[in-house]
């Protein structure tokens, strides 16, 4: 058993149901300031946006790194990112979600520039289309993406937009760009040192920056190197709650099942039920229990009596 502060069963259920976990202000200011110093100041407005971005990346003290190496080998030991990844709360959450010794996939410095940069060059200051990262992904597990916000983000600065609960949909990257707005979408407004842990399938995009300063976010994607099952704090995992369904006289207590069966505002009437089933399937995968069920959705379908002659 790890001595790290692993995620509880309820937090794991929240991640399975909604595809994200927020850790507000968990990175100390000293690391936040170090990270911003390592990134350096953005060039003054006036150059083409690609050139501006290129100049910023070239001078930032963030290493170029090929995918496939152990995450623990990527960042200089005294650098801000290594120090961030070494925080117990971060190590515990990573281990809970992707297991020990994750593999580095890629990272990126997302910098969103204020209107002055676009006005200087005639470019258009717009938000990023909503998308799912990488490719369509039919596998039962997931990668973890950590979004690090080293400075305060206001609503005016745009922030990362994401749609809770979309992570289990098998879509192909920018194919969903047509969906400008979806009920329940969230915009990251946060204090410095906030981390957003995302399931790799969640629908998201960068918001438009209408403030007078650049917005900086650093993303790290990591892959599991071993099974993701039963990595969280198993001492918090209770027996599945057998609850009344549909006909209920009072609110239900918060359990794994209650969390997994909570819909999102954008759920369609019929496919919302399939979302519940897909959450159950992911929970089965993460607790290594192929017989797990919540609210009878799978038991109804898997009833052996239906198959008998």
């Amino acid at each position, binding site marked *: 058993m790890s001595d790290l502060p692993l995620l509880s069963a309820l937090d794991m259920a929240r991640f399975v149901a909604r595809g994200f976990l927020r850790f507000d202000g968990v990175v100390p200011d000293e690391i936040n300031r170090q990270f911003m110093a390592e990134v350096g100041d953005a060039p003054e407005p006036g150059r083409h946006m690609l050139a501006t971005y290129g100049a910023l990346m070239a001078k930032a003290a963030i290493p170029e790194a090929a995918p496939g190496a152990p995450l623990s080998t990527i960042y200089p030991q005294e650098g801000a990112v290594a120090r961030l990844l070494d925080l117990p709360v971060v190590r515990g959450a990573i281990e809970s979600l992707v297991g020990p010794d994750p593999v580095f996939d890629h990272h990126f410095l997302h910098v969103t520039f204020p209107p002055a940069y676009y006005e200087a060059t005639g470019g258009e200051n717009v938000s990023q289309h*909503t998308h799912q990262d990488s490719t369509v992904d039919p596998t039962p597990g997931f990668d973890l993406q950590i979004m690090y916000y080293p400075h305060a983000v206001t609503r005016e600065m745009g922030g990362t937009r994401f749609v809770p609960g979309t992570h289990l949909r098998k879509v192909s990257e920018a194919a*969903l760009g047509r969906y400008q707005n979806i009920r329940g979408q969230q915009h990251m407004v946060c204090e410095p040192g906030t981390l957003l842990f995302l399931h790799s399938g969640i629908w998201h995009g960068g918001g438009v920056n209408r403030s007078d300063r650049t917005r900086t976010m650093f993303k790290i994607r990591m892959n599991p190197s071993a099974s993701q099952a039963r990595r969280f704090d198993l001492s918090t995992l209770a027996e599945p709650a057998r609850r009344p369904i549909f006909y209920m006289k009072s609110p239900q207590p918060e359990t794994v099942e209650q969390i997994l069966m909570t819909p999102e505002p954008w759920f*369609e009437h019929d*496919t919302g039920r399939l979302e519940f089933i897909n959450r159950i399937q992911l929970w089965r995968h993460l607790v290594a229990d192929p017989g797990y069920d919540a609210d009878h959705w799978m038991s109804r379908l898997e009833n052996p009596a239906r198959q008998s002659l």
Partner: protein
Amino acid sequence: MRRQKVLVLYLANSALDSPVIGWAVYDGTGQTRRMSGDEDTPPYRTGVDALKDGWRLFQASQILPHARGEEFDLAYLKYEFFFEQIVETGA
């Protein structure tokens, strides 16, 4: 000069009077520039409310059967309705 404005509504089921869960606006007049994440409240409660406000429906998604073995696979939003308004711009 006439220009087209397009409203795309994603509804909670195949009925045009079901709730709006997602939406997009593309403005061919150039008077507004809508973009991802620019509005958190739907412009209409249902598709029918858009009709009442003068939008003309010109396309609705089909209701398709589920392929065997893929019954639980979810991908794109299912109930997509395209509306238009033709606007006289005078330009």
